[in-house]
């Protein structure tokens, strides 16, 4: 029962929950994205507290580093043309609140009933392997990155390969969906290219103020 751990846990819990609440309640979408990053870092701190170092670093690298940038880019690219005036939440947002609170009300009591059984189980689990005579009493060997790596290559090889294919599909899918074909618009010709065309007699159709008139196929 060391007070520091409890204190730190409570601080991190408040940080994560607080930024979570801010994510859903703040009006400005950019601010809610920044609060999302704060909650990611809170969760990473929680992992560190639970000595899952590798996971904490992966969380910072993947979520706080990349996903948040993706979200920010998406927000900036789809800047609301009509401005923030529009309502942030649906009219009947309180229904969602009710559902969420109801769910919370259901989960927490069941958790607390099983609390005691989990306590003994976790105490049992904390006892390290039986001390071999020669060596000192080896403490509890918490799984680190090396064990994770071995289990990836050993026990969980199939899911590992499936995940890599899934990521590849997501990669290609995202590009195909988001790619805006540039073919439909005229590329700006440099001086030398225009001269090369003129020499071959291909004169670009230009309207009054000299802008290149797009070919009729692009009028759509």
């Amino acid at each position, binding site marked *: 029962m060391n007070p520091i751990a409890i204190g730190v846990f409570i601080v991190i819990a408040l940080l994560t929950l607080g930024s979570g609440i801010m994510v859903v309640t703040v009006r400005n979408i950019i601010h809610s994205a920044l609060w999302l990053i704060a909650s990611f870092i809170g969760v990473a701190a929680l992992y560190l507290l639970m000595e899952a170092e590798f996971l904490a670093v992966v969380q910072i690298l993947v979520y706080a580093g990349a996903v948040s940038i993706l979200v920010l880019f998406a927000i900036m690219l789809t800047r609301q043309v009509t401005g923030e005036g529009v309502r942030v939440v649906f009219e009947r947002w309180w229904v969602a609140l009710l559902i969420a609170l109801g769910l919370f009300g259901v989960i927490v009591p069941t958790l607390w009933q099983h609390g005691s059984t989990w306590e003994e189980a976790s105490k049992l689990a904390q006892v390290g392997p039986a001390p071999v005579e020669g060596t000192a009493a080896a403490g509890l060997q918490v799984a680190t990155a090396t064990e994770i790596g071995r289990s990836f290559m050993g026990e969980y090889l199939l899911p590992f390969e499936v995940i890599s294919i899934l990521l590849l599909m997501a990669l290609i899918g995202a590009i195909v969906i988001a790619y805006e074909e540039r073919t439909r618009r005229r*590329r*700006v010709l*440099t*001086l*030398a*290219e225009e*001269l090369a065309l003129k020499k071959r007699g291909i004169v670009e159709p230009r309207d009054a103020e000299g802008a290149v008139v797009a070919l009729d196929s692009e009028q759509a």
Partner: protein
Amino acid sequence: MLKTEELQINIGPQHPSTHGVFRMLVTVDGETLVDLKPVFGYLHRNHEQLGEVNTYLQNMPFTDRLDYFNSMVNNHAYARAVETLAGVEVPERAQYIRVIMDELSRILNHATAMGFMLGDMGAWQTALLWGMREREKILDMFEYVSGARMMCNYCRFGGVVRDIDDWFITELKKLMQGLPHYFDDFEGLLLNSEILLARARNIGVLPKELALAYSVTGPVLRGSGVAYDIRKAEPYAVYDRFKFKVPVGTVGDVYDRFLVRIAEMRESYKILEQAIEQLPDATGGFINPKVKQQSLKAPAGEAYARVESPKGELGFYLVSDGSGSAYRYKVRAPSFINLSSLADMCKGYSIADVVVILGSIDIVMGEVDR
């Protein structure tokens, strides 16, 4: 249909890389440049009206302020214009002195111009500061002989203000020993560097026909492949006595102009060597004594004299009505005309290239706005 709308960006007039007070209104579509509208006139000082009010001699110091990098060349061009108008002949030694000063000015101009362009490319002013050192040495020479580093006011009608003495010759020879090392360092520093090649090759291409159509002159024209140099086309002031070559590019892009300017510096070095050997002794006089400088009256008529300034063909057109000051005084400034080709030359390239292309044309706003 959502079309990324074109962005209007304003580069200048207080922009770190516009070589003086010059604004470019650039419309950009994504990264490529669609249209560029140059806006200048911020440095207009009413130079040509002043020329009509001042007497011929009084106007000489104002010509220093045109292309403030090469005041010697400006003075020389103005002096030649008045000499042709008034029919004054210039002694041999003065012509040699003028040629020496012009070639020294060409070297310092190209050294700093290339330095500024590389600075715009992001090369953090190393080449510029080496160039500045050579420029400092040359400016000390100008200061010794004319009295001021940049505003030399050195030429008079029929000669120069002060003769060059043996101290000047010895120091000039010492300077000449250092220059080849500087040229080699400069070429070795960047000429084959991959990133410069990537940033300079095939950027801002000005084909030969269009270069002539835009009537650009100087290194920009020679970079596009037209071998036209006034020192060869219409040899003035003893230039016909020197053996030197005219460097010419092939494609006409930023890289070619860069190479042409470096080659021109080497050619100026050759001219300087020959000029020092053939320099006549002081008996011939450094100025035509018969000319009354401050009260020179030119017969009615007109004259146009042009000089190969480092930036291009610098010409002075004078119409005189017989009085002591010019009736019409017009300066054909090379930077002004070279700048007119910038707008079309930059189309299709990115913003980063616009700044480099502007650097490669090497303009000075003093000359453009007059």
